[in-house]
């Protein structure tokens, strides 16, 4: 199930909220636990079993780790290792098996490992990471053990952030699981956040996505220099509004249920450096890799060369996390390169240069990066780069480009403005009275106009679903 669907908004959500608020406090987690499984199993009911298995393993191992942590360090460590291996093995099996099979077969030159062609359990990359964080934090003494199976299960499968993040670490919600405040303040801010996310996803991302689909489907012979830039810029906006819209909806839904999740995006496209971009883009993933990979590898404490190597390792993994394709790893390495260059000297240089240079440089790196991210093979990637930089046969600009530029002009301007905090700041500067009247109107519009698009639309992809 996805949030931006009629099923979720008009059947699942009203039922979940109604029963949740009618129930006495002590039953609420159980209710969430049940509806989480419905949400998760909607597309692939069989994988509910996988989810229950994953919850149980982590739950039991955590109790064992807690039991031995202070008395038998080695035993506790063994349980942690065992648990981490199982989690990663599940992820590797369901997500990467076919990639490894294909790679091995290609190297050997014959099919020695048959690909399985399994459907990817939705959100496995997200929930594996967040589940794993709990026993690790427990071992490190950063959180306390959760003895209540339902509470723990509710955390792992919590539907707002189950399938596309934010990746919520256990320690960040541990207290909220057993005690959380429900208030009109929180619920109404959840409503506002949800409708903003819905509008970003349905009205902006889906619409600008049509432009990218048009250009990415064009044969190289017709793809011009300007056209290929329009296309990938459209994707640049699509993926941001798609993913950050989804995170907004998740955070909003969490608040409606009394949870407070950490932010996942902070206007990444206004960054002046690539380093800053990654502090603003998919924050929860960056945090996870920092806490559970980069720092354990030694971070920056073991000399410069080791630090650069650590950055490279983290980003190769970050890339691969995004999808079972070597192009994703390449995309990660591409960013590692820029991050390392910035660390070595570019940050200082950019600091002295005028702001607009940093903005342009960062956007070009991000835009060119998305080509690597979104196209499926190196052949397609290099052919698209050729078009972008005038080494292909498509020419510079045609009347078709003029048509699409005109037809999507309003949309592109909306995208640029909505990528900055401008509207938010303007809204907050309004007198309180105006805001009090405007907010309910915007909530209704933000719910109903996307609904019209959902009723009519056949185009409602969800980009981060594959991860």
């Amino acid at each position, binding site marked *: 199930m996805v949030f931006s669907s009629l099923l979720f908004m008009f059947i699942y959500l009203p039922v979940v909220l109604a029963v949740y608020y009618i129930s006495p406090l002590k039953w609420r987690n159980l209710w969430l636990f049940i509806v989480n499984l419905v949400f998760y199993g909607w597309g692939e009911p069989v994988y509910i079993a996988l989810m229950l298995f994953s919850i149980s393993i982590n739950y039991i191992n955590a109790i064992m780790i807690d039991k031995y942590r202070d008395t038998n360090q080695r035993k506790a460590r063994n349980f942690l290792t065992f648990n981490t291996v199982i989690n990663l093995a599940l992820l590797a099996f369901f997500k990467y098996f076919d990639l490894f099979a294909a790679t091995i077969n290609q190297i050997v030159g014959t099919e020695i490992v048959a690909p399985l062609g399994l459907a990817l359990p939705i959100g496995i990359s997200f929930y594996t990471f967040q589940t794993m964080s709990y026993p690790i934090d427990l071992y490190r003494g950063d959180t306390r053990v959760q003895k209540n199976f339902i509470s723990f299960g509710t955390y792992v499968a919590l539907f707002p952030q189950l399938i596309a993040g934010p990746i919520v670490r256990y320690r960040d919600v541990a207290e909220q699981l057993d005690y959380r405040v429900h208030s009109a303040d929180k619920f109404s801010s959840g409503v*506002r956040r949800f409708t903003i996310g819905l509008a970003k996803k349905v009205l902006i991302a889906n619409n600008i996505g049509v432009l990218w689909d048009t250009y990415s489907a064009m044969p190289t012979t017709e793809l011009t220099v300007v056209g290929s830039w329009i296309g990938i810029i459209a994707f640049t906006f699509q993926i941001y509004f798609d993913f950050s819209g989804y995170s907004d909806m998740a955070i909003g839904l969490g608040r409606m249920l009394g949870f407070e999740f950490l932010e996942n995006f902070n206007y990444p496209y206004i960054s002046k450096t690539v380093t800053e971009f990654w502090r603003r883009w998919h924050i929860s993933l960056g945090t996870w890799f920092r806490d559970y990979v980069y720092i354990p590898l030694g971070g920056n404490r073991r000399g410069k060369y080791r630090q650069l190597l650590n950055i490279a390792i983290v980003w190769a993994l970050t890339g691969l996390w995004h999808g079972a394709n070597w192009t994703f790893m390449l995309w990660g390495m591409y960013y590692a390169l820029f991050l390392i260059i910035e660390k070595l000297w570019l940050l200082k240089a950019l600091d002295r240069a005028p702001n607009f240079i940093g903005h342009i440089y960062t956007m070009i790196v991000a835009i060119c990066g998305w080509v690597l991210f979104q196209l499926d093979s190196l052949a397609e990637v290099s052919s698209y780069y050729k078009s972008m930089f005038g080494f292909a046969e498509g020419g510079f600009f045609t*009347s078709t480009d003029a048509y699409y530029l005109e037809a*999507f002009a309003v949309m592109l301007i909306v995208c640029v403005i909505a990528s900055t905090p401008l509207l938010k700041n303007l809204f907050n500067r309004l007198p309180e009275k105006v805001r009090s*009247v405007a907010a309910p109107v915007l909530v209704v519009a933000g719910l109903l106009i996307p609904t019209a698009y959902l*009723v009519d639309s056949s185009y409602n992809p969800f980009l981060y679903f594959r991860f």
Partner: protein
Amino acid sequence: MTKTSKWIQILLFTALISVFLALFLAMPDVLFSEQENRKLTQAPQFTLENLFSGKFTQKFESYITDQFPLRDRWITVKARSELLTGKKENKGVYLCEDDTLIEAYKAPDPAQLEKNIDAVRTLSESADVPVYFALIPGAAEIHSSLLPKNAPNDSQKDVINFCYENSGAVNVDIYSALQSHSDEYIFYRTDHHWTSLGAYYGYTSLMDAMGLGHSPLTAFDRRTVTDEFFGTVYSKSGINWVKPDTIEIFAEQDEATTVLNYSEGEAVKTELYDYGCLEKKDKYSMFMGGITPLITVETGNTDAPTLLVVRDSYMDSLAPFLQNSFSKIYFIDLRYYKTQFMQSSIRNFIRENSIDEVLVCYSVYNFATDANVFLLGL
């Protein structure tokens, strides 16, 4: 933000999502959408097997979408807001001046086109009777100047030229006939078909190609049978605030004319105009009663030749004009006639029914995409 405002936001949000849930549960399911001219998805049957195969959940989502309360209104809201944001089209349909809805043309798959034109050539070369070949361009070609500037719209003229070079038949220049009357009401504004006037110009170019005389426009008493026709392009677009089309009749059915429809295999007597269809959404099917594999028209002109027409639905509104020129006309639509032809070829059909002349007449769109045209060459 005031506390009151916050409560209002909560109430509005929860009320809206619950109200539509209640309406969805309370309102009876709709079988058929008049506006979209299609059957709507019905509630899927729940079985464990359906659930675990994912079929149930998948179908349930399209069920909600199709049966969502006030569906037609939502579609209009969406179409309107698309056009408001500067888009020129909704679902590939352009809203042009004078409430004209035009769907842009996309160049066909060359492989299918070549296969189809090869079939025409095979028929032309092997048949013992003259074969005429006519392609009808659509509104996107004839009225291309109405489309927004630079809108992607491929040439149908190129397709016609390519086909005419390779058909091996006597080609009929319908394109020029329509082009020279492009400022007249020759295409419906809300449907992909030509109007009866457009069909009349098609008829004149056909007669010219066959060396037969044609009746002047003044010979017909034009009469309007409906001015409330909303066609297929309207249905597809969601742009439902345009004015309706008018359907006219030019050539009346002669008293001596007998029409037999073989839609179920057996011959059923019918008429050139099925006025009952004017009560339905798809009013164009008034012409010859809509889709059918085979329909025959026998006229009082017993000395005139017999004609076989292999065609699509554009022919329905042209057919009445042919009554004076032929003794008997067989109209075959290969899309629905397929099974019969697996046993007997078109060539056998020509021989068995003593056909004197053959006309292959399609709209450019259908000819280039229909996968059944190969049957001509068997």
